[in-house]
């Protein structure tokens, strides 16, 4: 039991730190988007990311292979990045619409969190089903209301 809760603390803290990393990445990408355009910035960022992630994989996995491939994984899982391109276009559309940046960001975050929780509950996309406890709901409520307070003011 103790081991499990230490792991939880470790992974939760790592997740929080990765959020900070994401904010820094978005900050830099935003600066790039001013010079290019949001879609072109995303294109360039993905290109740089190919090399960054490949080197990261080679260093961490110590694999001698050329590509991180496994025949045990369902084929569709390799194609998730295609959805990332659709996200870029949709975000581009809504940010430049009547709902603007803050509206887009708030709604995307809401959809993101709600769908992620639904994935947990239903075990979609090959994830294990998870029971959502009252404590989990309290955590979601605190984190989401805290995030929205910061966004909206």
């Amino acid at each position: 039991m103790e081991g499990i809760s230490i792991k939880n603390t470790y992974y939760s803290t790592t997740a929080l730190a990765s959020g900070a990393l994401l904010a820094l990445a978005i900050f830099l990408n935003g600066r790039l988007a001013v010079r290019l355009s949001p879609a072109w910035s995303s294109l360039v960022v993905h290109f740089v990311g190919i090399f960054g992630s490949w080197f990261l994989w080679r260093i961490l996995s110590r694999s001698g292979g050329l590509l991180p491939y496994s025949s045990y994984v369902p084929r569709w899982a390799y194609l998730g990045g295609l959805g990332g391109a659709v996200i870029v276009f949709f975000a581009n559309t809504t940010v430049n619409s009547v709902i603007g940046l803050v509206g887009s960001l708030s709604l995307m975050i809401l959809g993101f969190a709600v769908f992620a929780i639904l994935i947990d509950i239903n075990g979609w996309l090959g994830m294990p089903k998870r029971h959502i406890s009252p404590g989990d709901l309290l955590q979601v409520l605190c984190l989401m209301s805290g995030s929205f307070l910061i966004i909206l003011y």
Partner: protein
Amino acid sequence: MNSLVFISLALFNGFLIAGVRVTNAKLGMYVSAAGASFWNHLTGFLALALTVPWLLGVPDADFNGIPFYLYLGGLLGAVYIAVNNTVIPSIGAGRSTVIVIAGQIMFGALLDFAGTGMTAVLPSFLGITLVVLGMWVGYRAKLGIPAVAIAQQERPDSANGK
């Protein structure tokens, strides 16, 4: 009426983000977190490279004039996706998502404050307090079996992308 379309689109886009993140985490359970980050960037780049120049045209920008550090966002993104692929199977998609969002918003507010000094202090302080409270609540929660363990049961080898 028109705004309802964009509201639905933004909400749907959030669904899509969750789907993409979890799909990549699923891949990461087999080819390692960083390996899945590679596929995420490769397929994302190919899809954008095949559509953006045709749909939006080539920008009239001086690529040589762009400071080198602005390109580093891509490297940070690669690490971010890899970390996400580690965290999602371990503590769940929902918990990972709300924590990452909180971290992103909190640090984003700090960046804004450092950059322009224009941040509403009281709501931000309240928001950060709520985030800290939420993290504390989460630290006390018990977890189920990590999905990583399930993936290891499903396959006979422990291949890191052989």
